[in-house]
C-alpha cells in the first residue's frame, strides 16, 4: 500500500495573540459564539463593548445554562432516576443564581479598577465566561460519565466534578481578565478578589441546592449548612 507523496511544504498554521480586540465577523449564532469564545475571546469583549450585537449576551447566557444542564445529566447519572433531571435543573439554576448574586459586585469591582464600562457589558462578559466554562465541562463529560458508571462513591464523584468545574472556571475567568485589559487596566487585584467571591458563592450554591450528585427524598434540603461542613460530612460518609 502506498500513499501518494504530497508536497512537503508545511501548511501555515495560525499563530495569534489570544486577546486581539477586533470586531466579530458574521451573523450572531450559537456556533459562531462558541467558536469565537474558543479561538478569539478578545472579539467577544470588543462586541460587548461596542454594543453592536445586543443578542450576544443573551446567547451567552442561554448557552451557559444549556451547557450546565447538559453536564448536569452526567452529574445525575451517578444516582440515576429522578436525579437525571434534578441535577441538570439544579446546576442550571445554581449557575444562574450565582451569576445574578455576583454581577453587582463584579460591576463595582470593575469600576473600582478604573475601567469605564456599562453593566450590560460586564453582564455579557460574565455570561460569556460561564459559557466558556460550561463548554469545557461538556468536553470533560465523557470522562466524568465513565467514572460515574464505575463508582458508587458520592464523595469521589463530587471531588471529580469539582476538579473539572474549577478547571472550567479558571479558563472562563480569563475572559473577565480580558475585559479589564481591553480598557487598558493593569491592576487586576480587585478582579482576583471578585473571582474568589464568585468561587465561594458557587461552592456554597452546590450546598444550598444539595443534593446534586447524590439522591434525596426532598428537592431541597431543610437544614442550612456551610459548604465546608457539608464536604466534611460527605467525606466522612454521612449523607
Amino acid at each position, binding site marked *: 500500500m502506498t500513499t501518494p507523496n504530497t508536497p*512537503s511544504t*508545511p*501548511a501555515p*498554521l495560525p499563530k495569534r495573540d489570544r486577546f486581539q480586540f477586533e470586531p466579530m465577523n458574521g451573523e450572531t449564532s450559537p456556533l459562531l459564539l462558541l467558536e469565537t469564545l474558543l479561538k478569539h475571546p478578545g472579539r467577544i469583549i470588543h462586541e460587548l463593548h461596542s454594543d453592536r450585537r445586543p443578542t450576544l449576551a443573551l446567547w451567552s447566557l442561554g448557552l451557559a445554562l444549556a451547557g450546565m444542564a447538559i453536564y448536569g445529566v452526567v452529574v445525575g447519572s451517578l444516582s440515576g432516576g429522578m436525579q437525571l433531571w434534578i441535577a441538570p435543573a439544579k446546576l442550571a439554576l445554581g449557575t444562574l443564581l450565582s451569576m445574578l448574586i455576583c454581577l453587582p459586585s463584579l460591576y463595582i469591582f470593575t469600576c473600582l479598577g478604573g475601567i469605564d464600562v456599562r453593566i450590560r457589558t460586564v453582564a455579557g462578559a460574565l455570561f460569556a465566561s460561564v459559557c466558556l466554562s460550561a463548554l469545557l465541562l461538556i*468536553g470533560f463529560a465523557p470522562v466524568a460519565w465513565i467514572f460515574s458508571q464505575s463508582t458508587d*462513591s458520592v464523595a*469521589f464523584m463530587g471531588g471529580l466534578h469539582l476538579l473539572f468545574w474549577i478547571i472550567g472556571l479558571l479558563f472562563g475567568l480569563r475572559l473577565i481578565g480580558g475585559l479589564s485589559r481591553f480598557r487598558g487596566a493593569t491592576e487586576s487585584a480587585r478582579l482576583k478578589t471578585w473571582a474568589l467571591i464568585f468561587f465561594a458563592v458557587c461552592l456554597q450554591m452546590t450546598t444550598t441546592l444539595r443534593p446534586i450528585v447524590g439522591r434525596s427524598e426532598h428537592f431541597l434540603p431543610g437544614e442550612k449548612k456551610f459548604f465546608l461542613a457539608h464536604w466534611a460530612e460527605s467525606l466522612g460518609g454521612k449523607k
Partner: protein
Amino acid sequence: MKRRLRALLRGDADEISAWLAEPGIRWDATCILVILLGSGLYGFTVGLWRAPLQSLYTALKFPLLILLTCAGNALLNGILAQLLGFGLSFRQTSRAILMSFALTGLILGALSPVSLFVLYNTPPLSSNATVLGHSITLLTHVFFIACAGIIANRRLYRFLEKVSDHRRTALTVLFSWLGGNFLLGSQLAWILRPFIGSPGLAIEFLREDPLRGNFYEAVGRALRHLFF
C-alpha cells in the same frame, strides 16, 4: 506509507505538520491501522504469560484502550488546544494525538520480540515461582509501555513546539492533553482489565463486573493498606 512512517519515527516536524492540514481520512485510517497492528501485537505478548486465550483478549483490548481514549477525549483535547492559544482545529488535534499513539504502537510493536524473549526467560505459570513470574511480567510491561509513551510524547512535544513556535504553549498543551488522557485512559484500563491476568483468577475478556470500582479508589485503598 513506509516513507510516512519513517518520517513519523524520525519526528520530522516539517513533514508531519503538513499532514495535519490534509483533507480526507486516509492518513487517520493508516494511523488507526498502525495502532491496531502494533499495539495489538504487543498486547498479544502481554497476555501470553497467563494463557494463549488471554493473549488473544489482550491483543484486542490493548488497541481498544488506545482508540477509546482518543475518541473519549477528542472533544476535550480540541477545546483545550484552542483555549490555550494553539491554532489547531478539532480534527487536527485528534490527528496529532492519533499520530502520537501510532508512534507508540510502532515502538511497542517493535518491542514485541523483546517482550517474547523476556517471557521465554520468565518463570511460567505452572512453576513454583508464579508470583515472581507475574511480577517480572508486570514490571517489564510497565517499563516498555512507559518507554514507548515517553518517546512518543517527546516527539509530540517537538512537533507541537514547531507548530506553535512557543515552547511554553507547546508544553502547556502537551501536559493538558496528557492529564486528560491519563485520567480517562487509566479508568478505561481499569474497566478493560485484565491485561496480564492474575494467576489465581479465571481467564476472561472482562472481569465479571467491569464497571465496579475505579482506578483511583483502588490506588487509594492500596495506599491506605500500605501506610495505615
